[in-house]
């Protein structure tokens, strides 16, 4: 045994009592992931896939708890009030930052939560009905510029990146769309495929099967690089709209004050889950691009993303008013 390794063992033995009491037994009871979504919604599906694999790794059940409502406020408040012991996590998304602008009376996500891990990223896609003669983004915008208001775009909610993205595109191209707001992606897709609306700006996941079946034609994605699910579809940046580059994400947060050892443990375990081929396959099928990285990475992403959307919301003067 070398001297160095002896020193290391000694150091580890000295440090162990510090980490031990917190981490030795964790987790000794089920872990709950609280999502602000109905069962079957995308945060719910993501949490169930990750929970299934995480449970196998940590040897405790991982329970998904649905607390939808109040634009996430109900789930946020619940987790913010939960003990900071790592047994309650918040499954949330970039909307956590966006909603902070729209609903200033909610709990402050920056002081209430500590980031654990970014689980996935997901492109937003602008797609048109395939029976329309619109081959690409330029044709779409030319058509909209020629007849202001005649181009109809479906979006899955006022505070979604689909709606904000549509407004940004109007702003940057000078076109004028008629934006129809739906409660979620399903009914919006329904009306587009049924021929009642011309285009849709939505998360790729729910739209992907309809793009693959040929009912919809994707004309641009918001990611910095082309997405693996749609290698032939250009990004907004390629089409000359650099300002339209953004990525939606989902990730996990713990109540503020959760011990760093536990956050790091959960981060490492979920990172390992995201590396599992089986989990990757399930995620990709839902058009969730597995993400991962350190807890700090999520912190940076969350801060920068929130600042980006705050600016967009201000620039486009989006308000929740009639």
């Amino acid at each position, binding site marked *: 045994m070398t001297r160095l390794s002896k020193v290391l063992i000694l150091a580890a033995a000295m440090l162990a009592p510090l980490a031990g009491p917190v981490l030795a037994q964790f987790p000794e009871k089920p872990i709950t992931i609280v999502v602000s979504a109905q069962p079957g919604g995308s945060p719910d599906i993501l949490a169930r896939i990750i929970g299934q694999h995480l449970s196998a790794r940590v040897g405790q059940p991982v329970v998904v708890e649905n607390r939808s409502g109040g634009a996430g406020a109900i789930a946020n408040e619940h987790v913010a009030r939960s003990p900071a012991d790592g047994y309650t996590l918040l499954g949330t998304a970039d909307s956590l930052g966006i909603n902070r602008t729209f609903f200033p009376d909610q709990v402050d996500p920056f002081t209430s939560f500590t980031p654990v891990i970014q689980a996935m990223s997901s492109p937003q896609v602008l797609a048109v009905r395939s029976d329309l003669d619109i081959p690409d983004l330029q044709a779409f915008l030319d058509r909209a510029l020629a007849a202001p208001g005649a181009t109809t775009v479906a979006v899955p909610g006022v505070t979604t990146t689909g709606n904000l993205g549509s407004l940004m595109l109007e702003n940057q191209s000078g076109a004028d769309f008629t934006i129809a707001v739906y409660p979620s992606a399903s009914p919006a897709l329904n009306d587009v495929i*049924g021929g009642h609306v011309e285009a849709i700006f939505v998360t790729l996941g729910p739209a992907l099967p*309809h793009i693959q*079946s040929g009912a919809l034609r994707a004309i641009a994605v918001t990611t910095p690089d082309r997405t693996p699910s749609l290698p032939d579809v250009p990004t907004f940046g390629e089409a000359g709209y650099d300002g339209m580059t953004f990525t939606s994400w989902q990730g996990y947060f713990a109540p503020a004050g959760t011990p760093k050892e536990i956050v790091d443990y959960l981060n490492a375990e979920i990172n390992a889950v995201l590396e599992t081929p089986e989990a990757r396959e399930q995620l990709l099928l839902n058009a969730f691009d597995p993400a991962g990285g350190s807890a700090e990475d999520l912190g940076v992403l969350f801060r920068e993303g929130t600042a980006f959307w705050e600016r967009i919301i201000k620039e486009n003067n989006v308000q929740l008013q009639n």
Partner: protein
Amino acid sequence: MWETSLSGLAGGLLVAFEPLNILTCFIGVILGTLVGVLPGVGPVVTISLLLPITFGMAPVTALIMLAGIYYGAQYGGSTTAILLKLPGETAAVMTTLDGNQMAKKGRAGAALGIAATSSFAAGIIGTLAVVLFSPALVAVALSFGPAENVALMVLGLVAAVMVAQGSPLKALAMLVAGIVLGTVGTDISTGVARYHFGITELRDGINFVVVAMGIYGFGEIIANLERPPETSKVTGTIGSVYPTRDDFRQSWAATLRGSFIGASVGFLPGLGASAGAFAAYTAEKKLSSYPEKFGTGVVEGVAAPEAANNAAAQTNFIPLLTLGLPSGAVMALMAGAMMIHGIVPGPAVMTQRPELFWGLIASMFVGNALLLFLNLNLVRVWVRVLAIPYPILFPTILLLCAIGIYSLNNSAFDILIAAVFGLVGYVFIKLKLEPAPLLMGFVLGPMLEENLRRAMLLAQGDASVFLRHPISAGLLAVAAIIVALSVGLPLLAKHRRRAALSTLVD
């Protein structure tokens, strides 16, 4: 087209009859019946809880079980509706009207039997509709845009007034009250939360189940407390446990009509089993030669809505299986279950995974047969529920309701809301106001508003869109005819009577 359907179905039956699949189907329908009977606990909660258990199963086995929970719940939902005037499921609201009256007359067993047999007939008809008409129905479903939905909601609201017992003016008032309640919550078009009084939980509106549990369950119990015990009990003799031959003779046509109405409403996205039940009950009342008896315990009043909600539960699968478009929370969960198993719902399922598509559909035949057997045998058990003394029965129901309501969204606030609606329901009973139109307004009102605004927006403010679209024009015409007949005929009769009177005087 039908040849491929039938050969596909034959293959599907082989899958459905595998012993493991029969077993999971049985487990699914038993669970479904159970959660249907438990007030408030619905298929959405149950399926989401059981989803992780199905991870280890073969995809088709998992889907067979989850589907069984859904349509099984439609059977179970009628049980408490009939026995306790407490709709176990949204779709069972209409069943309370005549079903509970039958129970009060000592015919609970007959009502439960009719509910089971008409549900079975409808389940088979609905599944056949899925087999034969899926592609054609999909085209119709897709042609329903915002304008068509508006016309459908208008027709539904007109029908709601027609369904009501007694004064149409009271029914109209209740309907409007329901629509007003429906405006609570976030407006979809603008994102503004309305009438939430700073309460976060109200930002998303009030859940239908919470209102229904409060008005029916809690309200009925409060009202029962003030009646002396001997009169409040359902008449002692339960009579024959099973429906008589006359019951079947009287109700088979209603069952068939209800099945067709339910099957055709069920495949429209956004509507579901409850709209089918509303429509079927209205149609039956309009067609009957004794509409005044509806609400006093006629068999058709049980058969039609029960048939409709079960047929709709089967055809609800059509948009998901053929287009990948879930038509409600349960179907969204089924879509989630398919995704977790690596199957993307959509047109490709039928061609690429025929064993799964047809296996699931074939299992619905098996499941409905199991449910008929199960429910006819359970009738004896359920009828005994009525013999439980009230001091035990009432607290039990209250507790089960509270658990069910809490399970909807893990929210204790919802139980408080239900308690408030319990008081409202008690006042309604005192004032002899029928709550069904209120609940219909509550369901249809927000959908009408959402679609009306969307239709006007997409038509750039041109209101003639409702008449230019043939389907919407047709539906509006039907609504107009119903109004004209209901308002016009009595006036005409009055006029004739007056004319006859004056000639007599002359």
